[in-house]
């Protein structure tokens, strides 16, 4: 029953409808609910809709991220990746899910049952909670808090505690080593991550993510400024470390300490750890996109398509890292955070300071200058001792 008037409208107006399609959908449901239910229940219904959608989208995103990772890393290694289950291996995540459900859930004999059960739950909760804060599209953020960004960091920092409890509960030396590494790494990379986000807060004078995204209309995203680009690079490297991904995947280094903190977990508990990691990958990439790449801002396509494009672009880079890099050692990892990322993010704050008060040309020149010099100095300092660029080898007779 195509409405005859619709044929006349041009593409732009159709895009507008497509952009707000979810918002209108919720509004229709709300009108329906208002006419039927009493007032307090309507508030409940609106909350339930957004929560329900996010709780459904979270695991689906995680499942198809595992599929995407296996396909991308497979292609990097000249092989095809899963293609047996379903058309392009699209049913593979479902097969994995069923496998995880049917796998026996072993609790080691000396383990602390309560902790062993509790920690996967405690790890997944922050990962799912955080999805609510993200601006999925134009006025499509589930929760628009005045302190959105700060709450994001607060929630992700609680994840450290549960990883530690899980490893401690499973009474295994390897998971103990993994836990020590995990806590050290997560805490020491949180600081450069928050510092590199401070840059954006200083520029936009607000902590709410939705306003930050609104401050980047059309194409002038923050990444096109000197401090924005370095901010994105620093934030992104710190978030790779936050979700324990290569080259910072020491907590679950399979070649050294078997499987790190989740050595003793099997079946659905292991799947929960896995889900937490991938949801964190998604949420941190989405946050990086929101802060520096203008979230859902984009010229032509509907807003939520831009959001997914940018997020999956950043996620592809993380998968690309996974296919290329060896792992850093513990002390190098710490050195990199404290001796390189932290000073660079502080210098980045100085550059934003200059940017807000100086005139554009001076700000641009000064900004690039300061960043280039500081990068060179810090790189020189960090590699002075132990990296010998080209080492000489004798071809004897």
């Amino acid at each position, binding site marked *: 029953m195509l409405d005859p008037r619709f044929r006349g409208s041009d593409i732009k107006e159709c895009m507008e409808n497509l952009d707000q399609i979810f918002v209108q959908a919720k509004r229709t449901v709300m009108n329906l609910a208002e006419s039927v239910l009493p007032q307090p229940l309507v508030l409940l219904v609106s909350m339930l809709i957004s929560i329900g959608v996010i709780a459904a989208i979270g695991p689906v995103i995680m499942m198809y991220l595992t599929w995407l990772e296996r396909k991308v890393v497979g292609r990097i290694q000249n092989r095809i990746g899963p293609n047996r289950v379903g058309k392009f291996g699209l049913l593979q995540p479902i097969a994995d899910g069923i496998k995880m459900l049917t796998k026996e859930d072993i609790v080691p004999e000396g383990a602390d049952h309560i902790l062993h059960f509790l920690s996967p739950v405690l790890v997944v909760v922050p990962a799912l909670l955080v999805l609510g804060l993200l601006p999925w599209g134009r006025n499509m953020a589930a929760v628009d808090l005045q302190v959105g960004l700060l709450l994001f960091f607060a929630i992700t920092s609680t994840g450290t505690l549960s990883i530690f409890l899980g490893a401690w509960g499973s009474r295994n030396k390897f998971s103990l080593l993994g836990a020590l590494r995990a806590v050290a790494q997560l805490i020491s990379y949180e600081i450069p991550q928050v510092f590199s986000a401070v840059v954006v807060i200083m520029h936009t004078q607000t902590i709410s993510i939705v306003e930050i995204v609104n401050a980047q209309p059309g194409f002038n995203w923050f990444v096109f400024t000197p401090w924005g680009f370095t901010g994105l690079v620093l934030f992104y490297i710190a978030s790779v470390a936050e979700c324990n991904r290569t080259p910072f995947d020491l907590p679950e280094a399979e070649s050294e300490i078997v499987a790190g903190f989740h050595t003793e977990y099997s079946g659905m508990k292991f799947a929960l750890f896995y889900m937490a990691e991938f949801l964190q990958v998604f949420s941190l990439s989405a946050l990086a996109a929101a802060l520096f790449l203008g979230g859902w801002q984009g010229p032509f396509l509907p807003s939520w398509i831009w959001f997914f494009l940018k997020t999956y672009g950043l996620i592809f880079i993380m998968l690309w890292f996974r296919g290329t890099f060896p792992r850093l050692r*513990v002390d190098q990892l710490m050195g990199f955070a404290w001796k390189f990322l932290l000073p660079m993010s502080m210098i980045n704050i100085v550059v934003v300071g200059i940017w807000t008060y100086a005139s554009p040309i001076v700000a641009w020149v000064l900004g690039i200058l300061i960043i280039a010099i500081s990068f060179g100095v810090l790189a020189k300092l960090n590699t002075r001792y132990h990296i010998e660029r080209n080492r000489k080898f004798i071809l004897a007779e």
Partner: protein
Amino acid sequence: MTNTIETQTRPSLSTQQLEVSIGPQHPSTHGVFRMNVVLDGETIVKLKPVMGYLHRNHEQLAENMSWLGSMPYTDRLDYFCSMTNNIAYALAVEKLMGIDVPERAQYIRVIMAELTRLVNHTALVGFLLNDLGAFFTPVLYAFREREKILDLFESVAGSRMMCNYMRFGGVKLDLPDGFVDCAKAIVDNYPPFLEEMERLLTKNEILMARCQNVGILLKDLAVNASVTGPVLRASGVNYDIRKIDKYGIYDRFDFKVPLGTVGDVYDRYYVRILEMRESLKILRQAFKELSAGPVISQKGLIAAKSPRNMKVPAGDAYGRIEAPKGELGFYIVSEGGTKPYRYHVRAPSFINLTILEDMCLGHKVADAIIILGSIDIVLGEVDR
């Protein structure tokens, strides 16, 4: 909680030492090998290698089997380079029996030995990166090249890894007709693969930071511990059996022996890549000079036809070659019967493993894994 060993009292923070057994069932011990490590935090205080999980009684078996009967078993010693194991065993028995090897067989042996060196070093570079944490990408690039060479072995000897191709006095069968130009094609497009691996790895800052000045092996310790092979040459000692013994026809080829300077994991990695380049040079010369002719001497043919009544004159002999992992030697004693009286294999990885603790002390757990990886051990050879 953990069976910890009390530390000597230290005035400030007396910390507990953790004893971890990086056990036989561990993802990166290259087989069933165990390291009992005492850790203080992450640094290693004491490391005791435990071996013997894969002991298959190879030397005892050989004593009640015909001389040729234990040839297929030598494939299972170092299952990455079965051809060089066969050559070493054949060399030892030929020395005792005094059989000469015809010209063409000598060239075929050199070709097979150098191809095995390529296979072993490529696989090692891949596995070393796997221990470093690169998620299987270098291994799969390395295996892509290794597959091509294994297909060559299959077309020549019948099996990819268990070749059983050498006989006393030559080789079992002549090369199939398409072999030489197919091998030439593979050898010619090996350098682009090596460039790609070098671009991916050698100048990679993370690899350099992780491998340089880690597990340094000093020259005199290496020589005293009779370490051989790329591990020794990476510490700067010029000892290559192909140059010293000049066994077979290695004196006809001109090739260099790459030596490292510092002797750490990075040197051991890069010396192997240079060695691959040298092997490619040898292979090109060998393909040029390959001449027609018989593949096995007359005495050898008779012996191969009925191995059970092949008698070897009494006496003992020690035949050794430069296997990809080091000096692989076979010491055989014969009483003139059809069965060896005593048969011993000098396995390079077993002897290179003895200095694992000296290299690992003071390093982190992550370093111990890559130091073990850089020594390049195969448990089939270590435990025999």
